[in-house]
């Protein structure tokens, strides 16, 4: 498995992607960074100063971190269980289950968020079944934090399932057999072998889920209540309603830095772990 490419081949293969990223990602991102410090024809840190004294910004920042962390945690737990199940199946039987995991992934997030109304609403499936079973009163599952977490976890699930599944499938089965022969029970095998070896997958899943959820926009707008405003919604208010693009750009830059720091931290943990092993 150790193919090494010559430098020129590497450059040649990467060049198209690099060019695409520079044009379609680097340039607009540069513009956003530029407009966060270049307001009304001069350089200024006014937008960032405004943010640093804005209680609105801190509240929304807190919201964003909290919601993202919880949604990532929920989708990680659920995703791990699903991945364990998928990994234990024969490849032929695994296929239909994988499609089931992918199905919500192929559906537009807007459609999914609207559709959740049918499930979570006052007259939704859950409340109707509960009423049928004799529960009086309603479960408040929508237009609050619960709704946002459910909607986001549903969206994030494929992003945690697949990296974890990949790292589970890559494990050497003979390790488990050896452990079994040596007398380890299933719990011990999981804790000592399966879990540690799957951590790179977990990390990749957490990274993706966390960064994706920090930029979430539609789900909090449609399923959230008044307290569930997130950063992307705030950016929307400043870009479209008040046309304060300096402030909107500054928020976007803060969001980008936060995601960047998060990624750097997680990668560092991973490297330390790799060195430890």
């Amino acid at each position: 498995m150790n193919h090494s490419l010559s430098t020129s081949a590497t450059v040649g293969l990467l060049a198209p992607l690099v060019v695409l990223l520079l044009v379609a990602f680097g340039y607009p991102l540069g513009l956003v960074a530029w407009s966060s410090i270049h307001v009304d024809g001069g350089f200024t840190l006014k937008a960032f100063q405004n943010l640093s004294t804005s209680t609105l910004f801190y509240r929304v920042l807190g919201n964003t971190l909290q919601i993202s962390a919880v949604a990532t945690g929920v989708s990680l737990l659920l995703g791990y269980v699903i991945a364990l199940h998928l990994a234990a199946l024969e490849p032929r039987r695994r296929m239909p289950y994988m499609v089931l995991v992918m199905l919500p992934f192929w559906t537009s997030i807007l459609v999914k968020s609207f559709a959740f109304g049918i499930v979570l609403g006052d007259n939704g499936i859950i409340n109707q079944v509960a009423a049928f079973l004799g529960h009086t009163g309603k479960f408040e599952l929508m237009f609050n934090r619960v709704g946002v977490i459910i909607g986001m976890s549903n969206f994030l699930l494929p992003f945690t399932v697949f990296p974890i599944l990949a790292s589970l499938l890559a494990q050497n089965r003979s390790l488990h057999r050896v452990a079994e022969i040596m007398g380890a029970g299933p719990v011990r095998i999981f804790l000592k072998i399966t879990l540690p070896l799957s951590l790179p997958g977990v990390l990749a899943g957490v990274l993706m889920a966390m960064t994706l959820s920090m930029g979430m926009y539609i789900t909090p707008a449609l399923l959230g209540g008044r307290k569930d405003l997130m950063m992307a919604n705030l950016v929307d208010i400043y870009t479209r309603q008040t046309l304060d693009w300096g402030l909107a750009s500054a928020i976007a830059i803060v969001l980008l830095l936060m995601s960047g720091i998060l990624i750097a931290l997680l990668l560092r943990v991973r490297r330390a772990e790799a060195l430890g092993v």
Partner: protein
Amino acid sequence: MTSPSFKVRTASIGAPTALAPSGGARRRFLGQATAVAASATFMPALVQAQAKNIVVTCWGGDYEKAIKSCFAEPFSKEMGIGVSLVNNADLTKMKVQVDSKNVQWDVFDSVGPQITAGARQGLWEDIDAKIVDRSDLVSPGGKDYVGTYLFGGGVAYDPKRVPEGKRPQNFKDFWDVQRFPGRRGLRTRISEALEMALVADGVAPDKLYPLDVERGFKALDRIKPSVKKWIETTPETITLLTSNELDYTYTYMSRVFPAQKAGSSVAMATGQTINSLEYLAVPKYGKNTEAAMRYVAFCLRPDRQAAFANTVFFAPNARKAVPLVAAESKQYMPDVLNTANIIMNDGWWADKYDALQKRFTEWMLT
């Protein structure tokens, strides 16, 4: 492009010469030929002076159909200038066009907060008083934007679920959670919400402005626990009623009547409405500024205003149009003469909207 098409034209009109039987016909032909030649020669200059087509922003659905039949098509017929409608145009895209001096839209059609935000950013050309006559307008707008027609917002409910006597008739009722218990829906925008709150708190609609902001927020504090959803998108003001997630919502007449026509069980209390203006503005650096001004003037013509009111029940802004509106349409229209009704003052909001919207968003989070 010009020279081959010119050749084709000479060739095709060359044919009748041979067949022309009389001097009269020949003279006529010569006249035509000269005209064609002249138009071919001066074509580039003419195109610059008179636009062939202008682009106007729009809101889709029944609104777009009405704009097409009442304004766009008659304008094209009379002026020989085509009108293309672009839907869901937002101010952000307009600002990008003006900032880059590459303007694709000639007329921008929007509500007060957007139009005045655009005005503060200096996006609009001053309205050309030589072309646009505003002497007859109820609400003329500002120096760089024009009020076109009014639309009414009020309290809506599902008449099947809410029996008579339990239906809030005005904003005071909407705020009265004892007499009218139920799940409420309000918008995430501070404009309209603040007016509603103050009227519910007892301020007379004609003495609203300048708005007493502190009193308004106190009144909003009272309704806050009963608001189940602060609604971000306009269609949801109807769908959350029909899906039985809310009992009473703030919504617009122009949304309620199409929903009724489509068979939904929705009704609106028309005893008290907030009437807001729709505006037209012409962006700076447009390629067809003069034609755009002519379109704005055309939209204000009483006969056109009345036709539009009869189609989608927006109240005309031109006084002379009011008697031309059919009596049966008037019952679906915001009544500008009803003193219980509120007329939005977008001028008051212009320089206060940003700060108050920020405060309102913060208020919602706590």
